[in-house]
């Protein structure tokens, strides 16, 4: 049996969904943009009738109809066209956290603005680690500037990050767009990679995170992107992020209910625009820290929220996503390890299809590539745990658990010599990388995990091979980025300055 974990009783899931459907009618959902209002009105939904307030009241039958048209599972494909991520059932995959603005400098232990070279290094390490089924557009490239001088990330930043990732990786990508204008270029980029928009729709390489704003608000760019993705048939991952006590009810059950309402509303918009388009019941729910006003990603209650939200999605038969394996610590220390390992384990047991967050420090404000390789160890252990205790060895000798092996060894204790041992130990045991210290004490002083992780990162980067993309694809990539940079520069009235990578 596959070990699991459940936080919600069937009865409680029923109550959560009943109240979530109630919320969709009262107070309703705020929808930002005119096309969304139009789409809803054409489906017979009243938007802002009483007061012209942009609030839509979504009737349960319509939402249920949209739920019914959402696919129960789908795949993401790698560049070779192989199925690499299965969104559905209890399959579990991990990807690094997304869109960090700072990078932990392993030398000074200070957080500094992240740059293209950091994103490349993260992609290289992620590419070599089997624990990560997908890449993410992990960090903001502060050196890629469109706008007035060294500005905060601009609209083209999302496209540029995807451009960097696609050049350096064959794996599927979890990405997202922070502006309505940026999405089109990103889909063009993916279509250029796949060969055509039609091929991209058939064998999607990427999934896009799309976020409602708590509580119950589908802002202009969020809902825009949802509609555009649905129409393009590119998978959308709805990442609702209620903060329990801050932007959502303080009770975990109350926040799970709000999360359900926000995702249900998103699925309704998405499926109305593109029935049958792939969509994920995702989230990054967290508690609200009553001292700092922040979102503690390493808190056990945050993990509980992620698990419970995914449980509701599973109950509805939808693919799921959560945000775990992150920490609130600013250093790669014991707190970082404990929080990340705990939530990786819980997420794997819960059977969440895609778990984002590895590598993240400081409540998602800072990325550490050293933490990423350490997190890979927790993930591998969690994956091992989720496989459970299996009965095996039939193919080697008989169908017994122990007696057949004892028949060979008697009381000699010589199990190390058995064929079974050699044949099966790799399946039975996860063999950690040197990041995990199990060695006997030697003459050299023991090293700590951060030191070992630094060495490991260097080793992985040295084994990494950049994929060789056809010249014409690269030219298409560059043309799309140049086109979007020119558009953006036009909007900002300045020249674009993108580093080559």
């Amino acid at each position, binding site marked *: 049996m596959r070990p699991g974990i459940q936080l919600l009783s069937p009865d409680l899931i029923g109550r959560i969904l009943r109240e979530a459907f109630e919320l969709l009618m009262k107070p309703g959902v705020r929808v930002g943009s005119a096309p969304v209002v139009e789409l809803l009105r054409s489906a017979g939904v009243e938007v802002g009738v009483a007061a012209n307030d942009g609030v839509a009241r979504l009737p349960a039958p319509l939402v249920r109809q949209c739920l019914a048209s959402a696919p129960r599972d789908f795949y993401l494909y790698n560049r070779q066209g192989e199925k690499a991520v299965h969104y559905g059932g209890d399959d579990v995959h991990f990807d690094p956290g997304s869109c960090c603005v700072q990078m932990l400098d392993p030398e000074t232990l200070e957080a500094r603005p992240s740059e293209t070279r950091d994103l490349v290094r993260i992609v290289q390490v992620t590419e070599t680690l089997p624990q990560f089924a997908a890449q993410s557009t992990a960090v903001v490239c502060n050196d890629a500037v469109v706008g007035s001088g060294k500005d905060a990330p601009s609209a083209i930043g999302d496209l540029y990050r995807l451009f960097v990732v696609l050049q350096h990786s064959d794996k599927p990508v979890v990405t997202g767009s922070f*502006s309505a204008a940026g999405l089109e270029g990103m889909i063009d980029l993916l279509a250029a990679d796949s060969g055509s928009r039609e091929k991209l729709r058939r064998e999607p390489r990427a999934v896009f995170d799309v976020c409602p704003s708590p509580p119950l608000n589908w802002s202009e760019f969020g809902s825009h992107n949802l509609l555009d993705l649905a129409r393009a048939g590119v998978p959308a991952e709805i990442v609702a992020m209620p903060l329990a006590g801050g932007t959502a009810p303080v009770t975990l059950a109350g926040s799970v209910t709000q999360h359900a309402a926000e995702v249900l509303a998103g699925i309704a918009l998405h499926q109305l625009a593109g029935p049958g388009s792939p969509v994920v019941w995702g989230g990054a729910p967290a508690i609200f820290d009553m*001292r700092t006003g922040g*979102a503690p990603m390493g808190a056990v209650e945050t993990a509980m929220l992620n698990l419970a939200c995914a449980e509701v999605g599973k109950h509805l038969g939808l693919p799921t996503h959560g945000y775990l394996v992150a920490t609130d610590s600013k250093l790669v220390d014991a707190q970082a390890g404990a929080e990340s390992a705990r939530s990786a384990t819980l997420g794997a047991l819960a059977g969440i299809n895609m778990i984002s967050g590895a590598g993240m420090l400081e409540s998602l404000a800072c990325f550490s590539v050293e933490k990423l390789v350490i997190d890979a160890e927790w993930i591998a252990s969690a994956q091992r745990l989720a496989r459970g205790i299996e009965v095996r060895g039939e193919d080697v000798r008989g169908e017994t658990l122990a007696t057949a092996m004892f028949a060979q060894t008697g009381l000699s204790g010589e199990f190390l010599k058995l064929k079974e041992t050699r044949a099966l130990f790799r399946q039975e045991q996860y063999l950690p990388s040197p990041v995990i210290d199990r060695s006997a004490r030697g003459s050299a002083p023991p090293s700590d995990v951060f030191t070992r992780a630094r060495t490991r990162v260097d080793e992985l980067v040295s084994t990494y091979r950049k994929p060789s993309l056809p010249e014409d694809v690269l030219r298409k990539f560059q043309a799309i980025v140049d086109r979007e940079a020119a558009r953006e520069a036009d909007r900002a009235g300045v020249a674009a300055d993108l580093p080559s990578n």
Partner: protein
Amino acid sequence: MSDPLFQAMRQSIIDGAPDMATELAQQALANGVDPLEAVNQGFAAGIKFAGDQFGCGEMFLPDLLASAEAMKAAIKILEPEMLKRGSQREALGKVVLGTARGDIHDIGKNLVATVLSASGFQIFDLGTSVTPEQFVAKAKEVDADIVGVSALLTTTMAGQKAVIEALDRNGLRPRVKAIIGGAAVTSKWAAEIGADGYSRNAIDALELAKNLMSKAMNKGTALA
């Protein structure tokens, strides 16, 4: 401070009890207590205590908000009498607040508004997704001392810079101080865009605002 009425006022704020604060404010007026004294010696002492307790981790954000609500309730009762006596509680300063263009996340901004307002600042809250032009117009209109811009998203942080540039363009700085805050904001970013200050949370924002006001006043005296 030893006056039991002032003690009870202080306690009503610490308890976050608006009904009790209202009742005590009414009692003060009925007994002919100077409303300004009721504020300064009673209610405001409660806010100070709550702020200190929050600072050292003994009180939490919901407690602090409740205290601020109680303070508002008391001021609402006392204000007309203060106006009548011409003893309007002098505002510590005028603060224009809003979130940066494109950013609709306003928890942090609202906390700052609540804490500053409870502590005696006059707040002009422009709400969410405010353009630099709107900040400038309001700052001019109310003759603001401080403009505070909040941004949660890394993508909207650029809006903070835009506001500071707009304040500069319109010649409002250095008289008007620009402060910023938000989850992704760092002191480094604040320095980079030339903000006059940055704080990590609402209580620090109060300290920051007070410091900026006292600096401005010192400067004013020196110039005079």
